[in-house]
């Protein structure tokens, strides 16, 4: 199994670069994973990542894109409550790319 090294500590990742042990996640790891995705993290990115993690803690799955956009819209204003905004932040798709950075498993299936 592959691994990454952040701040001198080694963490397991899977073939696709997703963190294997979700409990190990911290912001440094998030920032590192973002780098591997060519995403420069800003406050707006962290807002999304933190929401994903909170939702995951409650439901053991990442939120539907619609749930995510709605939550972001409520928090940051209606102009940002759309998937366009999320794709600007996470060009490879909010579900997969943002999940990876948030240390969550990849959504699978026909998505």
């Amino acid at each position, binding site marked *: 199994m592959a691994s990454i090294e952040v701040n001198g500590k080694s963490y397991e990742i899977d073939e696709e670069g997703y963190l294997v042990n979700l409990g190990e996640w911290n912001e440094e790891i998030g920032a590192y994973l973002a780098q591997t995705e060519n995403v420069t993290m800003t406050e707006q990115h962290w807002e999304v990542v933190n929401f994903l993690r909170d939702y995951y803690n409650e439901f*053991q799955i990442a939120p539907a894109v619609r749930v995510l956009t709605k939550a972001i819209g409520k928090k940051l204003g209606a102009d940002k409550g759309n*998937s366009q905004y999320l794709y600007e932040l996470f060009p490879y798709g909010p579900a997969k790319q943002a999940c990876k950075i948030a240390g969550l498993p990849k959504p699978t299936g026909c998505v």
Partner: protein
Amino acid sequence: MAGPEIKAPAFREFPTIPALQPGSMAGSKSYVANEKIQEALGFPGKLDDDWQVTHDKAIAKMGDLLGKYRGLKVFMDSCVHCGACTDKCHYFIGTGDPKNMPVARQDLMRSVYRRYFTLPGKFFPSLVGAKDLTKEVLDDWYTYYWQCSECRRCSLFCPYGIDTAEVTMAGREILDHVGYGQKYSNEIIGKVHRIGNNLGLPGPALENTLEGLEEDVKEETGVDVKYPLDVHGAEVLLVTPSADFFAEPHIESLIGYGKVFHAAGISWTLSTKASEAGNFGMFIGNYDQMRKIALRIREAALELGVKRIVVGECGHAWRAAYAFWNTLTGIGAGGNDPFAIELQKQLDPNYKQPAHICEVTWDLIQQGRLKFDKSLNDHRIITFHDSCNVARASRMGDLPGGQFDIPRNIIKAVANHYVEMEASTIREKTFCCGGGGGVLTDELIDLRVKGALPRMEALKQIADHDGVNFMATICAICKAQFTKVLPYYGFNMRLVGGVHQLVSTAIKLGDEK
């Protein structure tokens, strides 16, 4: 994503046969399932360290399949290498890799079949193109059987009716039985057994998502449209791909199904247990997995006491439902175990069991029970992409070609602008989206982009000529695949959507203020 930049092939002026590029896709290999994923499905965790053991297991499994599936044996024997299939495969057209010609894909297995199961192959292998099964051959199987979307377009043009999908399924089945499974599909099947759907969406999350949808629809329309979950005694159990609960644009069609039931006054429910219509057991050619997945739907139907079972917009699910559910589960006549018989007594014989959501909606339209304001779809110029498993492996309604006509009829009933794509790319001749059959995974994005070429060419033609800006489809895989690959061809990712998304836009809910 890291890695080399993926580029779409150029549009061709004329759809000629591509120049051969041997080995061009040899490196495009989907991730192999780990031991945990494999063993959860009862398959060996990994390849045996001793090649001879793997070799013997593979040949034994092949013998088993040849004995069980008469079709496979006929397909192995009857090909005359006429070449009619070669340029019919979207992956060959897009990649030029000769091993993506359907005939060559089959020959990966056929050459081994000859060596071990025919007399001339046993004694004079080189004279009849027979080959030993080596590790290299097995690797080729893995690579190229996971570059087939089991779309069966090649079979349509085969004068002998050889079904490459059956060969691909057999190849994958053998690979699974020697511990060489694919991560994407097998991980998903494990999630269905563990959690209830491909996505891994647990009950509470599903409930939360559906409540959110009710709020949204109320906000948009002012009407209390319900998205019920696990309601005992509902008339209809709707089984839909779990992507409909999660992804865009899929969820727009789910909203549409709810509006149809609301407007028609039909009580319905979704189920946590049967929260997945998709059946990846079919993709890996494994009967036991296919049955186990399908049985969840029977259990849910019996528990909830529903009278009708309706399937949402999912291509291969409709094939599984239409062609296999009857004997697998007793939904429809055929199953003869006690539970199947009980279910057949419970289901209402006045309706098709199972029914496709498009059949339900079209019936209601014909009965005058749904009303639309078509002008609400006037910003869209629409075309329809036939999904392969619906087009070539099932039917809808009572007339031949119903699976082509009914979705189109619905679109024309809810929208004013409809344009058809080029005739050789639609209906039974439809091209795969490029992501079907278990290849909708990120590491195969190169294959997926290239395999979409013929569909994108046909779309480009009517986008340029007629201003088409919406491609409707009734398959979760098609929707996810197009959302991802459209931008590679210069299109907006939002150009794809569901038929019931269009229904949702135009439908009158009947109780507007």
